[in-house]
Structures are given as C-alpha cells and as structure tokens.
C-alpha cells in the first residue's frame, strides 16, 4: 500500500480509518489515485450555542420571549432597583427596616401565606368535588370557581368589606362570637383567600382527573382503608401540582392591592399591607422610599418562589 498524501482539509484526520477498513479487501490494493477520487467531505462544526432540535422556530420564539420579558418585566424591575440605589446603603437599610415597613412586610407575607395555606386545603377539596362527583348545577359551580380571576378586585374588596363588616350580613353573626372579620388582619386574609382560590383548584384539578382509578383499586386490594388510600396514595401524588397552586396563590396574595385595601382598615403598624405603604410613599412624592420597599418585596418574593421551585423539584423526583 502506498502512502497517501494527506490533504489540508478538515477531513484529513478522519480519512486513515476509512482506508484501513478498505484494505481488508486483499484483491484491491488502494492507491493514492483511487483514494483521491473520493470527493472530500467538509466536516460541519457542531452548533456552538444551542442544542440541535428537530423542532424549528427556536430563534423566532426565543427572540420574542426575551424581548417581551425585557420590555415588560426586566427593564421596569431594573428601574425600581436603580431608583432605590440612588441613596446610600445606610439610608436604604434605615428605610427598608423601619418599623412601619417591617409591620407591612409581616402582614403582606404572613397573610398571603395563611391565605394560600387555607386555599391549599379548600382548593383540593373543591377540585375533588368537581372531579369525583356529579351533581346538579355542576357547570355553574365550576364557573363560580373562576370568578375571582375575572372580577375587578375592587368590586370583590367592597363586597367582602360590606359582608364582613360588624353590621354586614356575615359580620353580624361573627360579632357576638367575638370575631372581628373586617378592618383588621383577618380581613386581609379573607380577601386573599377569595383572590387565591382558583389557583389551587385549577392546578390540582387536572392531576386529580388524570389519576388512574386502578391505583386506588390496587391500594384497596392490598388492604388499605379509604383514609389510608387518600392520605398515602392520592394526596402524595397531588404534591407537585398542589405546590404550584400554593405558590401561585401565595405570589398573587403578596402583590394583591385592590381588594385588600377596602377590607383591611389600613391602620399603620397593624393592618397596612406593603403595596399600600408603597402607594402612600408615592403620594407623598417619596419615590426613593417607595422603590426601597418595592425592592425588599421583590427580593423576598423572588427568594420564596425559588425555594418553592426547589421543593417542587424535590417533590417531582419520582417522575
């Protein structure tokens, strides 16, 4: 076998392996001539940035996504951070941790958490009823669940305040029991429950619907009671979806403004939510202070959603 000159193309390192394969055939001795007759193939570089996908349209969809996210989320939020950065760190810290602000954070995050937790229980129950049973006016109930999505939040706030005020339809029965349900933190929680309910129902419902009946039969045939089947088979399987619903209800509750201000009473240090505090600062032309509180809320919310995502990833470990 003669020595074959290597070309200066990218293909060269690949070529010798092919020749060795060819020369297995003893009758045909490979010569430089025959080898050169094979057209040289240019190697294609592996895509550098994105993984090759069979689904077209990555460039267009990713471009639009990034543009919208930048224009509507990233740039406005950066502006808030930049505004807050116009003061010294000491000033920032003083405003961010002022007693009134701390009380407002506690109320906003605390009430949102409690409301999301309550929704977590009743939302699952509502989803269960909607999926598992047939009853008259089911479509109506189904539509009612979505109403908090569509109703102007101020309308909800005014209606709830009227109902739960000490003289209201519901409030008049609570007052003798010593329960004050409006114009205090309890009112805030009530408003946030109203706002957050559909999130849990609508995320849990499809998972519950898809849960195969044979899994429940399997549990029953293995001797599990109904309670054991629900507690150990059905609810754990709902876990990841439930956490998503909880996180959405919580996030919505933290940011909620319109419905809360009508029922909260808005007393500083007691029933004043953080979004309202921001508005109050704005009305007093204290833009930097407003931005400072906004930045704190932004950071805490982001952190909590990250943590919930991490828990969710853990809860999905079996998928």
């Amino acid at each position, binding site marked *: 076998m003669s020595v074959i000159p290597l070309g200066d193309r990218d293909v060269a390192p690949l070529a010798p392996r092919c020749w060795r394969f060819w020369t297995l055939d003893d009758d045909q001795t490979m010569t430089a001539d025959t080898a050169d007759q094979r057209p040289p193939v240019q190697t294609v570089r592996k895509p550098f940035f994105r993984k090759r996908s069979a689904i077209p349209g990555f460039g267009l969809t990713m471009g639009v996504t990034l543009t919208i996210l930048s224009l509507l989320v990233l740039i406005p939020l950066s502006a808030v951070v930049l505004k807050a950065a116009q003061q010294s760190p000491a000033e920032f810290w003083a405003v961010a941790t002022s007693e009134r602000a701390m009380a407002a954070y506690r109320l906003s995050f605390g009430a949102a958490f409690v409301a999301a937790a309550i929704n977590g229980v009743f939302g699952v129950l509502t989803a269960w009823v909607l999926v598992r049973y047939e009853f008259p006016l089911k479509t109506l109930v189904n539509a009612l669940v979505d109403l908090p999505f569509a109703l102007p939040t101020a309308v909800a706030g005014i209606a709830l305040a009227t109902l739960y005020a000490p003289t209201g339809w519901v409030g008049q029965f609570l007052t003798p029991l010593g329960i004050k349900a409006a114009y205090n933190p309890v009112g805030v929680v009530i408003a946030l429950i109203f706002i957050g309910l559909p999130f849990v129902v609508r995320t849990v419902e499809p998972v519950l619907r898809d849960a*195969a009946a*044979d*899994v429940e*039969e*399997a549990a029953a*045939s*293995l001797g599990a009671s109904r309670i054991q089947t629900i507690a150990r088979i059905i609810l754990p*399987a709902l876990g990841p979806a439930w956490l998503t619903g909880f996180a959405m209800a919580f996030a919505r509750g933290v940011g909620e403004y319109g419905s809360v201000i009508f029922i909260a009473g808005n007393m500083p240090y007691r029933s004043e939510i953080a979004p309202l505090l921001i508005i109050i600062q704005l009305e007093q032309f204290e833009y930097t202070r407003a931005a400072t509180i906004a930045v704190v809320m932004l950071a805490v919310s982001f952190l909590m959603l990250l943590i919930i995502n991490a828990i969710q990833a853990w809860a999905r*470990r*079996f998928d």
Partner: protein
Amino acid sequence: MTIAIRSVEKQFGRYPALNKVDLEIADGELLALLGPSGSGKTTLLRTIAGLEFPDAGQVLFDGQDVTYASAAARRVGFVFQQYALFKHMTVAKNIAFGLDVRKGKDKPSKAEIARRVEELLKLVELEGLGGRYPSQLSGGQRQRVALSRALAVQPSVLLLDEPFGALDATVRKSLRRELRRVHDATGVTTIFVTHDQEEALELADRVAILNNGRIEQIGTPDQVHDAPETAFVCGFVGEANRFDGQVSGGRFNAGALTVPASALKDGAATAYVRPHDFALDEAGFEVLIERAQVQGALTAVTALTSDGRRLEISASRADADRFTGAVKIVARKAHVYAA
C-alpha cells in the same frame, strides 16, 4: 384456596358482560381466562377479585360466600394491566404497602417487612432495585414489581389482568416462564386473563374460553386445542381453515373437501381443519400451491382449491420442495359443527 363461581351474572347498562357463568378452580391451580375483547373475561376476573360485584349468582372462596366481600377482605393479590404502581413510592415501599397499611398486631415489625421485601425482590430477580422509583424501571421490571407487591400480602389467590399485554415479545416470553416459576414456588392459586391463546396454552394448567359473557369450554390446553367443543373454540384456539358446507348421510361436504361427520344430522354445518392436519395424498383433492415459505422447522403453505378457497397448510421443513404446482392433499382430521 378453591374458588367456585356459581351462575354469576353481570350487566353494564343493557349489555350483559357475564351470562350465567359457572367455574370451579382447584387449590394451587394456574387457570387462564381466554377470550376476545368484550368476552367478559376481565369482568369475571374483577368479580373474583371483589373489584366488581355481580347482579346475581355467588362467588365462593373455600366454600365461603364472598360475593359481596371487599377485595381486601378476600385477600386477593391483583396485578393490573397497567401495573398501577404507586409512582411516588420506591419499589421497596410499593412492595411493602400491603403490609404497611395493616393495623395493630397484624402489622409486621419494620425489620420483618424489610426482610419480606428482600425475599420478594429476590423471588422476582430484582435484588438491589428496591430504592428505585417505578419511572426508573423498564416495563418488564415494573411488571415484576406489581407481581411481588401482590404477593407480599400472601394472598389466597393471585389474579392477573392481561399481565403481559404491554410488553414486547421477548420480555413477554421470559416473564411467562417467570410467572410459572413463581406460581410453582409459592403454590398460590392463580388466575390470569389473556387474549393471547399461545400464552394461555403455554402457561396454564387449564384454560377457560369465554365468548359473549359465557364460558364456551374449560379444559387442559390439549383438550381445548385438540377436542374443541364448540365452533367458536375451534376457530379461536389454534389456527384453523374454515369450511361452510352441508352434512348429508354422515359426511360433510364443502366443495372438494369431504370428511366424515357421523354424529351430525343432515343440514348446514361448518368444518375446521388445522393447518397441520392437511397431508399430501394422491387420493385427496387437488390444490394449487400459491406460496411455500420455510419458517423455522416448518413450511407455511398457502394453497388454492379448485373452487377458489384459500387454505393455510403447515408441513415439515423437509417437505418444502414437494409443495409446488398442483398437488393432491387430504384432511386427516376435521372438527365439524352444526351451523
């Protein structure tokens, strides 16, 4: 555990799923319920399990009436078609579930449960996979987990719904042997549902063939294959060439084919001839060979009769060369049923 089904009836809406079904299953037996889809075989299995309750009739376990007892009270081990594994639990937790949900003094200790799980994993050859989740297993492995989960509660009877339906052919074959081995090792009375006659005939001690909510025949694999009692069984179990013709004077005639049918009265009848029951014979009728293909040890032959019927013939591989052009064949054996 002996099981007796006594004139069980079940309707879904206006559609009868089980129609006066009677069935006796001996202790330690491996029985197949074989039938086409919609024949009621799964409904019968679920009725035995206590997952479905009959409209009329009785289900007896060891002579005790359990017709309306729950699945748990009957202590059945049920393997579902899609396995129904608890996907949020590890394999070990899945297998332990039946023991873990017991209460009070019935509940084995943790160490006892762990020991039992190990034992079962070993039985189905899944040692070391106890910590995996079902999503991390292959179809065949999931099937084994479902089997050992059902066996963990030491069931009085093991029931399997289309146990190998969702698996590919090779895994299916090896799991078939596996089930036979597990059955022989545990001695538990076992009933499985299948639409695959090959599976039923290879695996079961006895086969019950269902059609339209009735049991057409119960017998050993040889009995149902070689002595089918009804036309349906003959057509469903094993391959058969069907001839519609007439019986007159104790002989069945359909075109060129003539076979004895002494037990039947004159009139319309149907005959079935298995592909391997045809043989080359100068005294027979003439057919034209369309195609002769060697398949392993056999030759699969397609032939046309003079009146245009297409026949499937199975011959030995050595005879492949003799099936060319026009040849004469006879039916050595035929199953004839009055139409």
